[in-house]
């Protein structure tokens, strides 16, 4: 073990010395702001997935600021968000009046070689298709898979790139969505990236350890294929089992998108999702269909969206407050990326 650590330190020192000769990149600053109006057909907040939660209100998403800098082979990323989407709505344990901002990414990275790199800090999760930043999603509302999965993982990970078509990541992580581990560095995770043909990328992800609801394991497939200039197809499928019959979830979502003009793309998200049985009690099952358009002009994207959800267990409400199997909403969001 001692010899191994000495070898790693020696290798790192040599590479550090070489890295000092490499050029420094200027500081990168980027980010986004987003705002939305949502109208729920039941005239009250009804669909319980993340973000776009306010009914009949022009509401805020977040302002997101990202800093990145590279010096030789070392780099850092710091991403801070302010506003409901990046604050209380994306940290499950945060109180709105206590936390004034949220760290989305805060990590350092070192490229030991062109193929091997290591990253440590607090990072956007490698699990799932959708992300917290509205710039990274096609739909403005989010899927059940996104809402129930991890948002961020703090930890240390190593990535080896075999080629442009295959890479492997393995890491040790804290429990989900926390700056400080509450149960120690308790999770192990891995990601295999394969790109069988040009335009098609698939990520096979596993995360096992302390998570939402207890110790458990998520297996996740996230893939997208740019089939033609105009047509893109995405898929996310995941299964989460919590130990000792603690439940979990399983689901699949399909994301076909079709560009009808340079500035206009139409897309659909079809999702099936179910919570697993806990102590003999069956969980709710959901199907959801979301029609979304992205209309771009420069850095601005308008996102009109209609969403229809169904669940046989009647978890939704009607306008009069009675339980209902169906829910629907319309939203119009504006996202500016810079």
């Amino acid at each position, binding site marked *: 073990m001692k010899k191994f650590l000495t070898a790693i330190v020696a290798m790192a020192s040599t590479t550090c010395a070489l890295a000092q000769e490499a050029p420094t990149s200027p500081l990168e600053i*980027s980010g986004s702001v987003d705002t939305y109006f949502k109208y729920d057909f039941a005239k009250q907040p009804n669909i319980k997935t993340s973000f776009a939660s306010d009914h009949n209100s022009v509401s805020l998403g977040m302002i997101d600021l990202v800093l*990145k800098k590279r010096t030789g082979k070392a780099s850092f990323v710091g991403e801070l968000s302010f506003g409901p989407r990046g604050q209380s709505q994306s940290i499950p344990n945060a109180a709105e009046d206590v936390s004034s901002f949220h760290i989305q990414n805060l990590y350092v990275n070192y490229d030991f070689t062109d193929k091997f790199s290591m990253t440590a800090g607090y990072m956007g999760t490698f699990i799932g298709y959708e992300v917290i930043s509205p710039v990274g999603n096609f739909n403005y509302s989010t899927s059940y898979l996104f809402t129930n999965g991890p948002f961020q993982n703090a930890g240390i990970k190593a990535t080896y790139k075999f080629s442009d078509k295959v890479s492997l990541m393995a890491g040790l992580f804290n429990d989900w969505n926390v700056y400080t581990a509450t149960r120690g560095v308790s999770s192990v995770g891995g990601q295999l990236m394969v790109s069988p043909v040009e*335009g098609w990328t698939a990520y096979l992800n596993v995360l096992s350890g302390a998570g939402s609801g207890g110790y458990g394991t998520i297996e996740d497939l996230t893939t997208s294929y*740019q089939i033609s200039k105009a047509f893109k197809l995405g898929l996310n499928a995941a299964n989460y089992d919590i130990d000792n019959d603690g439940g979990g979830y399983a689901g699949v979502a399909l994301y076909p998108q079709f560009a009808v003009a340079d*500035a206009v793309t139409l897309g659909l998200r079809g999702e099936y999702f179910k919570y697993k049985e806990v102590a003999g009690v069956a969980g709710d099952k959901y199907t959801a269909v979301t029609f979304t358009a992205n209309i771009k002009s*420069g850095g601005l994207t308008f996102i009109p969206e209609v969403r229809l959800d169904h669940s046989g267990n009647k978890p939704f409400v009607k306008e009069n407050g009675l339980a209902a199997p169906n829910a629907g909403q319309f939203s119009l969001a504006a996202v500016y990326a810079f």
Partner: protein
Amino acid sequence: MRYTFLLIISFFSITLFAQQKQFATDDNGKFIYYKVVDSQKVSKAMIIQRAKNFVAAQKKAIKIVTATDSSISAKGTLIIDKTVLVVGHPSGEVTYHLTIEARNEKYRFWLTDFEFIPYQRDRYGNFVAVTTIGTPLEKKVDKLTTGQWKDIQATAYAKVEKFGESLKAYLAKDDSVKKQNKPVETISTKTW
């Protein structure tokens, strides 16, 4: 008052002139950056060797497709930045096809087949390609994206022009004269 008027007119003339600096089009209507260079006493073989060295020095950005004793064909990528003053970030990349043809004492090179691939910030805050299918840089786009597309074309031209200058400078450089490492100067403060 006349002075002010003249100043305004000349300012706009300079601005318009600056805007005119853009790609020429070839026989097929594609954007092209084309240069013929008089290389004076440099032989054809030497020009090709230097061109190969130039590509090898940028192996991450340019890859040779074919090479003969008088020509090189390569594919490359230039990163397009969105910059305001000193800060910014990559907004996309332009792929291109580079051809270099040499004769004794002169050569020509051209870049064409420009395609733009936009970048988007990923979940880790890094800018990555949104798609693998590029849009030809000469394509006419619809009204909503015209302004942004013109900026991309202008930035691409500036990058290609800079690339062309660096290629010319490299091919004009005599590699046979090896740089000698200067010994590091030692300054003694004991005597003065």
